[in-house]
């Protein structure tokens, strides 16, 4: 019996991730989040059964990177658009992909009510505490004292209110089935985030309610840091406030 060492591929670009340059800034978490979605879609073999809804924000062109049918929503309305799609095509996997302005500012009404109705969709919420595409203004999730172009002296809660923990709000609604907060700034977190996204897709078949996966992410450009610095800052400051972990998990007995 002989043995030979052969080289096997243990990690490569997923098939559903379109082989093109993504426009995101160097080090931006969007790229990882997109890749994880496509890994899950490929592993579950559901490329032909999945319909995504893209937001307005940096990820407005998500459909140029994730190779599934997509609907481009008006700002904030992605979960309503996803509702429309899922209600008429209940057998498809429907997900929305939204940033903090889209989901927790202009889209708050739609977010709350989609979750309250328990729409059987997956909402992926990328929270980087700032408005990226429009150049770095305050987001509902901007931390207190965090600087942005509209809070140049730091967010003052007495004027601008407090950072909004929308994930905690939706977890309290009976319509949500699985609510979790993850991040993609370290390898371990990337693995956990992928598992969360996988659950988000798998649970959809149970028709038990909305799956909501928040991914706390960096924004090196608008935080004015290098990518490596931004992930360290995220680890120290963002995760201190937006704590990682499951906020709501299904009762496995009923699964």
């Amino acid at each position: 019996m002989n043995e030979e060492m052969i080289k096997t591929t243990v990690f490569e670009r997923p098939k559903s991730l379109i082989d093109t340059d993504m426009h995101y800034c160097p080090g931006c978490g969007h790229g990882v989040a997109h890749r994880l979605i496509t890994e899950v879609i490929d592993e579950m073999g559901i490329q032909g059964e999945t319909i995504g809804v893209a937001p307005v924000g940096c990820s407005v062109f998500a459909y140029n990177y994730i190779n599934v049918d997509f609907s481009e929503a008006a700002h904030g309305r992605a979960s309503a658009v996803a509702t429309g799609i899922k209600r008429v095509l209940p057998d498809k996997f429907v997900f929305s992909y939204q940033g903090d302005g889209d989901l927790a500012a202009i889209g708050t009404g739609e977010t709350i009510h989609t979750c309250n109705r328990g729409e059987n969709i997956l909402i992926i919420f990328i929270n980087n505490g700032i408005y990226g595409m429009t150049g770095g203004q305050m987001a509902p999730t901007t931390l207190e004292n965090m600087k942005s172009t509209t809070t140049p002296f730091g967010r003052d809660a007495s004027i601008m209110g407090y950072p909004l923990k929308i994930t905690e709000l939706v977890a309290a609604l009976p319509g949500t089935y699985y609510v979790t907060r993850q991040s993609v700034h370290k390898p371990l977190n990337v693995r956990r985030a992928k598992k969360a996204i996988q659950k988000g897709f798998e649970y959809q078949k149970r028709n038990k309610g909305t799956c909501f996966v928040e991914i706390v992410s960096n924004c090196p450009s608008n935080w004015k840091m290098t990518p490596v610095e931004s992930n360290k800052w995220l680890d120290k400051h963002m995760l201190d406030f937006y704590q990682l972990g499951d906020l709501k998990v299904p009762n496995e007995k009923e699964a």
Partner: protein
Amino acid sequence: MAKAKGDITIEIEKCKGCELCVEACPEDVIGMSTEVNQKGYLYAVKVVDACTGCTNCALVCPDAVITVFREVKQKKEQVATITNVTDNITVTVDK
């Protein structure tokens, strides 16, 4: 127990020089180039042959530019001995 042996390839023209892979690698395999790619970014390069194929770098890479390989033992069983060959012989095995 010996460490696993791995390898990576990097699509340097897609790399945006974010250095997250450098930070993530536990074996300090990756460093940054001294020349820029077509986009003007310094890009990630293998600087030492110590890769274990852990995939940490690829996990954190936002642009999916890294492919990771691992050397695995492949068992081989001798199935035939052919001697005194003067011509080509083709042997196929069903996989």
